[in-house]
């Protein structure tokens, strides 16, 4: 069911985006 897959993809992209924003903000600690 592509509708459900699309919704799951939105959650994955959002979560990944949130993690990357945190990685950027705290890059001096992370990297």
């Amino acid at each position, binding site marked *: 069911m592509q509708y459900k897959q*699309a919704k799951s993809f*939105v959650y994955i*992209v*959002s979560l990944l985006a949130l993690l990357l924003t945190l990685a950027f*903000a705290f*890059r001096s600690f992370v990297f």
Partner: protein
Amino acid sequence: MKNTGKWKRTLWILLFLLLVFTPIGILIGGTEPSPSRSPWLDFSVALGFIGLALMAIQFALTARIKPLKEPFGSDVIYHFHRQISIAAFLFILAHPITLFIIDKRYLYLLNIFQSPLAAKFGVSAVIFLIAVVISAEYRKKLRIPYTFWKIWHGILTTLVVALALLHVFLIGSTRYLAYPAVKAVWLGYTAAWLLLLIYTRILYPLKLIRNKYHVKTVKEERGASWTITLQPARKKSFHFKPGQFAWLTIWKTPFSDTEHPFSISSSSEHPEEISFTIKDLGKFTSTIKNLQPGQNVYVDGPHGSFTIDRYPEAKNLIFIAGGIGITPIMSMLRSMADRNDKRPVKLFYNNRDWDSVTYREEIAVLENKLNLQVIHTLEKPPQKWDGETGYLTESILQKHLPKSWFQKNTEIFLCGPQIMMDIVIKQCMNLGFDQKQIHYELFNLV
């Protein structure tokens, strides 16, 4: 065919991820953290960057780029557009909220009469974005007419992205946009977004005007519906697959952004003429009967992946229609008749009463031409009716489907009111059909 679609989908998804994450990737890899700056300030900036990148990409999703829509289906793209736009909205909203949490003094930026120009742009963008989201989510509850909403949705979202980009360039020039790589990325996004606007608002409407259609006939059908048959004004006509739909602009020009989606009901084997059967359901559809032969209609199509042609290996076909949802299925039946396709077909066709069964007589003729069995279900049957009554149920489906049909090479095509589709999908799954065998398109997203 399916494998090619899979590859195309994968490539589009990778491109999407690249576009969403390039700005943040450049920030992470190409900028230096400032010791005097709160990491939460950077967090806030990054939220805004992600949100804006997501917003700008929406213009590509809704630009009717056929190579993008075909592998997924237009309805899935619109569904995704709606979902991911809410994510974009939350990221953008979180950008100022984080600022206010870090330091309450930032609240002064909300006073657009005294705040700097960059803040004026940013705050206005967020206000317009809130209006966009509320009007899209609650259009029906707020009783906003579709055409009015559609025009303003286009105007407001354009304003949001334009103001947000101005906000980024003004405020960012002193900080992250001072890095050439970051600036180059955002200049690139701005240029691509402007090109998309030119394409969707100027070039695409011009193309539709060049390929306009004329009304050939307007015919009344059963069930308060009207069939309009169109012919291309110039020789060029598009080829479509049975079950696909097109956006029609009637009474106005394509620049007005007032098109409506309708399923093509005619046979795909005769693309020189295309027909649409439209039920009189509201302000716009009630004007269809007033169309005159020779009148201009602008047709943007074909679109959609709701078609039997995507499943050439299907051995048995089940069509389920509710009321005017018969139109794409009628295109499939007519095309099958023209192709001399003798695959067994069961059509479950639900209507209120016998007199409002659209295409009733023609379907009876097709029953003899095709290997087709029609099961009418009527909510208000006439006296002496020995067919099925009420809504379509699991037991009606089970009663009319041979056991040999409950296997992988049966494909189900479903079109009708949303509530009926939700119920029938569950019924089909209860009967043992796989989700992948059930095909439908949803269009009442707003």
